[in-house]
């Protein structure tokens, strides 16, 4: 039971990282990413292959996983940068599918649908599985804390202000002399790097990745987590992920409430509840539990300067 709880917390942390990444893209810069599971997969596969096949240290694999996802994000954002957001939605959705098809078919590289097993994890094998679980939980907690800290810095920096300006009205940002396309591409790549980081950690935690693990439903989990927590709010992203994991796990007990269902029907009901929850939240509380608060900006006191002039 303890191990189960710890594993769920690790997953909440990984989902939290993805929600933080999505928050940069969608919450701060107002760009959609409906294929974030694709960037998650890119991070997972790059890190798994580098550490398992080439024997690189885990930290290096994770770094390249994040960079690879950022690169992929950059390409996707560049292609659609000049177009309306609808096109980005279509392209990202397509991207995640293409990644899944590629991972299933490039057997020489990814071992196809069988997946890659035996991905190394930090101190795995040297300590008991329970201790490994705890070590990884601590690791994820540290990573989440660092990422939240850094993204809060971005949010309060002038850079974050430009991103919010893009989200609210990119023409105004352009008139103010901001290079809209550059900021958009950078923000998208930054968000994708965090998502790729989560993917890399996921592989090292579970030791096994396969194309089946990167289904569009995960994108829905993350969008749900961010929307429930509060779009635009970094703390909301983390808290929303905890809620989503809790919600998903509690739907497991549906079999006890509704007897006589087949396994397929239970799975279908659970997915229905996830999708339904997202629709309900979007409809009833689109700002989430912790709505975004604009950082306070201290403006020079205009009346004071007027008085000074007068004297």
């Amino acid at each position, binding site marked *: 039971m303890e191990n189960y709880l710890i594993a769920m917390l690790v997953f909440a942390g990984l989902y939290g990282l993805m929600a933080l990444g999505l928050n940069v893209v969608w919450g701060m810069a107002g760009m*959609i990413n409906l294929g974030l599971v694709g960037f998650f997969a890119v991070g997972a596969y790059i890190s798994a292959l580098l550490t398992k096949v080439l024997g690189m240290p885990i930290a290096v694999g994770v770094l390249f996983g994040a960079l690879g996802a950022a690169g992929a994000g950059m390409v996707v954002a560049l292609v659609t940068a000049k177009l309306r957001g609808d*096109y980005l*939605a279509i392209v990202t959705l*397509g991207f995640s599918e293409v990644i899944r098809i590629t991972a299933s078919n490039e057997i020489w590289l990814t071992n196809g649908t069988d997946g890659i097993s035996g991905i190394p994890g930090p101190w795995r094998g040297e300590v008991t599985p329970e201790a490994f679980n705890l070590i990884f939980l601590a690791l994820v907690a540290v990573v989440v804390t660092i990422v939240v800290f850094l993204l809060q810095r971005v949010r309060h920096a002038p850079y974050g202000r430009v991103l919010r300006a893009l989200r609210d009205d990119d023409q105004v940002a352009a008139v103010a002399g901001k290079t809209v396309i550059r900021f958009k591409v950078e923000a998208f790549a930054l968000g994708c790097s965090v998502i790729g980081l989560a993917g890399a950690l996921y592989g090292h935690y579970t030791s096994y990745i396969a194309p089946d693990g990167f289904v569009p439903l995960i994108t829905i989990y993350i969008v749900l987590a961010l929307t429930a927590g509060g779009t635009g709010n970094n703390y909301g992203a983390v808290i929303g992920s905890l809620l989503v994991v809790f919600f998903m796990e509690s739907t497991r007990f549906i079999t006890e409430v509704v007897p006589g269902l087949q396994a397929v*029907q239970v799975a279908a009901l659970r*997915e229905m509840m996830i999708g339904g929850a997202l629709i309900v939240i979007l409809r009833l509380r*689109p700002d989430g539990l912790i709505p975004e608060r604009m950082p306070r900006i201290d403006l020079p006191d205009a009346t004071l300067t007027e008085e000074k002039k007068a004297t």
Partner: protein
Amino acid sequence: MLTEVAQLVLNGLMAGTILAVPAIGFTAIYAVLRFPNFSVASQVTIGAFAGYVANVTFGLPAPVAVTVAFLVAGLSGLICDEFVLRPMRPTGPLAAAIAAVALTIVLENVVRFWFGNDLRGYDLPVLRDWRFAGLRVSPQQVENGVIAIIAMACLFAFLAFSRMGKAMRAVADNPTLASIKGIDSVTIGRLVSFVGMGLAGLGGMLLGLDTSIDPLTGFRAVLTVFAAAVVGGLGSIPGAVVGALTIGVAEELSLLVLDPAYRTAVGFFAILLVLTLRPRGILGERAF
């Protein structure tokens, strides 16, 4: 080699004709309601299953069952839009797009709940392929193509000659001007949701007639549908037809150089190519 290419082009045109039906649905909804309604994926599946029930359970012949597919998917699309997506649209097109993805997950699982994950096939007469000049074509494919062409002809006639059809084009063209002229955009929105999703459902059944169906039928097809719409020009109905034929042929010709598993990826790369070189698509964004 030449006959092989000719065969692939023929297959591509056949596939493209069928693909054009859901692509028109997707693009028409985009033209009027101005957001990418991703739930087209689940309506494709719902249409395919509605047609399956009509065909296998009630024993209706396939050409009759497709009208059931159209009506059920259209009705489902109308209800979903009315209660889920329309209230979301004032928040912005992207919020509605996200809600549409969530809706797809819900509807796909409604189908899975009742029918399970098994592959199902329609009740069809087994016929020998027709052959001419070294080319093969199955009578079922021809029948599907004819159904698709009839559906599209009806749609074009509706848009060109009927009052409601003209109103729909007017809203797509210029919503403000249309509302000044007294056209109720909500009614037109309902109409386009019904017709658009109906076409998606009909297309779903046509796709299923060629192979088999399961709850993921729509999801697998949807990338190709988007590709057809974007390549032809998102929001352009004739564009969707041109785009669908292009993608259909391109997918088949890709078999010469690529593994068949990458067929769906062709659509994605076509999208990237078109967005880079000619973002408005082959025919631009004018609705009709």
